[in-house]
């Protein structure tokens, strides 16, 4: 990809390795040296069978877990120099997560759920409400602000989760099988929404999926096998 030469990648993984120790099986190498570059504005699908290390890679890229070895750099700066507080702020300001389950707070309304990362940032409540409401509006839930997760459908819940991830206007969206728990039609709608938001907001996105047909819509696809990124196109 010649057009990336000379430009600093937004997020870069260098020889990333992750081992786990299991009492019965001993050392398990989940990631065996992953190299990856995400450029500003890219939207990338990460394909692979379950157990290939897709989720682990996503967690490492999002600083939810620390690699056994290797390095992750954001705009060229290694994240390993940051302490816990800086990493938390990095997650808050730069990264938005969407998971397979929506993980919404059950006692909070859609609006309050979408506001959470802004409140974590200590944004003033009124402004946080406006930003979160605008983002819920954008994902098509303008009329569901005061509903609790239990009163929403699966697709709507995932939209709230998406709005929550994007309310902070992050630079990178990391999505771990966001459509995995949804029926194909709803899943398709969520995926289209992500692609749309990428075009609209210029957000960089890495979406883990194991659905080959859905992944065809992505301009760039990476494939993982046995803890390595084996192919990209």
């Amino acid at each position, binding site marked *: 990809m010649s057009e990336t030469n000379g430009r600093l990648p937004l997020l870069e993984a260098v020889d990333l390795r992750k081992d786990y120790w299991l009492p019965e099986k001993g050392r398990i190498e989940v990631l065996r040296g992953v190299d990856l570059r995400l450029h500003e504005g890219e939207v990338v699908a990460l394909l692979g069978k379950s157990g290939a290390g897709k*989720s682990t890679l996503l967690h490492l890229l999002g600083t939810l877990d620390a690699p056994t070895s290797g390095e992750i750099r954001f705009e060229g700066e290694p994240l390993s120099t940051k302490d816990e507080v800086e990493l938390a702020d990095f*997650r808050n300001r730069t990264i938005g997560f969407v998971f397979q389950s929506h993980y919404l707070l059950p006692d*909070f309304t859609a609006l309050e759920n979408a506001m959470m990362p802004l409140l974590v940032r*200590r944004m003033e409540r009124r402004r946080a409400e406006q930003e979160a409401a605008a983002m819920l509006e954008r994902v098509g839930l303008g009329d569901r602000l005061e509903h609790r997760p239990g009163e929403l459908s699966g697709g709507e819940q995932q939209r709230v989760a998406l709005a929550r991830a994007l309310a902070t206007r992050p630079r990178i969206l990391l999505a771990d099988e966001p459509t995995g728990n949804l029926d194909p039609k709803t899943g398709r709608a969520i995926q289209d929404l992500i692609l749309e938001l990428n075009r609209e907001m210029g957000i960089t996105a890495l979406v883990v999926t194991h659905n080959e047909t859905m992944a065809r819509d992505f301009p760039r696809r990476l494939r993982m096998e046995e803890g390595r990124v084996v192919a990209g196109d």
Partner: protein
Amino acid sequence: MQRSIAPREPASSTAAAEAPSRRPIAFSPIAWLLGTVALVGALAGQGAVRLFLAHQLGMRAATSDAIGILVGVGLALGGGVLVAGLTRRIGFWELFAGFLLAVAAGHGLLAAESTAAFFDLVPEGARFLGPLALAAALFLLAIVGATLAHMLGVGHEIDLAVGWEARVAKSHLRLSRPLLWGLGLLVLGIVPGVVVLALLLRRQRRSPTLIMTVLSIGGVAVGVMALCVVLAVMSGFEIDLKRKILGTNAHAVVLKYGIFEDWEQAAEVARGTPGVLGVSPFVLQEVMLTADNNLTGALLKGIDPETVGDVTELPREIVEGSMEYLADPSRIPVRGEEPNRLPGILVGRELARQLRIFVGDPVMVVSPLGGDLGPMGPQPKSMQFRVAGVFYSGMYEYDSKFAYVALDRAQAFFKMGGSVSGLEMKVDDIDDARRISRNVLGRLEGYPFRVKDWGEMNRNLFSALKLEKVVMAVILAFIILVACFNILSTLVMLVLEKGKEISILKSMGARDNQVMKVFVLEGLAIGGIGTAVGLALGLILCTAISIFPIPLDPEVYYISHLPVKIDLAQFGLVGLAAIVLAYLATIFPALYAARLRPVEGLRNE
């Protein structure tokens, strides 16, 4: 290909390395030093401040004690904050090392004569445990300071807000309005409260944590209530005892080495001292009393009937006869013929009962000394008195041992001439008796005069009472401690239950200290509600005991009903102690939650 590794620009990585690292420091000797200085300083400082304020500035004992303790608490808390700020973590090991040194220093100070007075709060019987307990309390306070500072981001970025953390905490505890109403009703009446809570728990059966929460609140409430009621009853006993002792005895006495003849001038000086309300002379000797065939030992006190009412309650304690008969014995009613010629004597009700005497009966007072010299050595001297009155103070020891006669009769009987044993004084503030009596001594220019206040005269009794109260408080505080373990287990359950939620919050960028806040707030909510309910229940129970007295056997306890003294400051201290214990109980689960790695709750998807 994008997988090739581009050479790193060295500029950016060195820039990152040069930026000041905010990582926690492994073991900070400076923090350790500061922590030790703070703990030892708090230990010695509280004593030094109290002694200085009381003795150099002449402050009231209660005030100087309070200020001294506040200084100690402040130093310990401040030391904890400093250590947390310097180490950028809680600094437990630094503080613990400081604690060990503080225990050693405390025992050193206690062993040294000149500094042992720093520990005068420690009861005599607990000399060894005193510094240990004091240092442990200060260490816990330092931990409170350190964890609070850590939670509020001292050393990183100070972050006092609790907005979303409080909302999340509330949703975890499911502290709905009906639940709080149920607890409120529980305070007002057990039955409706239990019904409401039972209905509520039935409806919200889905969450075992709600049941745990309610049980934890109940545990704290029961502990706080028990401690409050027991302390109120013990205060009641103490006050009752104090009232009886001070009713019969003066607040302070002036004594003199040698013969006390110039007592009238000394009485004038004492009367002119600020804070002294009354002065009265007295003579005191041990004698035997006989009436018919009955005999008992007694303390014979010569008093001035005119002024004795200014210093003791004696005139108001006469239950039969009259005080006036002492000055004018001829008015004593005598069964039979002629007017009385014998001098009058007042005896206690128990004494009268032992001697089987009533007002108007003759009593023989026998003193082994004071008689003429006979062929076998000094002969006992005896004199007839007539019972002029019977008093009842409520203290068995006084009612069975004391007999009063007019001062001049006593002086004549003991051949003392114009001299007295001492002067009794009444002061305007009994807790300040020591300072006022010292002032009197100062105006009398010291030696050969000396003064004693009621605390010194009854030291054994009151220090035993104080020790009993402290031990009782410590034992009952264990109930609250057990209740706080309830809080701990509830919180641990909550942390385990909410692992996923913690991970999500962290993926959103919640900092460790913010997650800590969530669980500390939960623990404090449980502790706070439990304490409030317990204090309210304690107050209601104490009020009920004082309105509907619980009878006691007066022959055994010498008090007709269970006394209770509602001291709001004491209630406040119990509440504060309960909240501090509840806070300490939250530290472990809250730190556990805060230190969970974000990926922990997401892994088993």
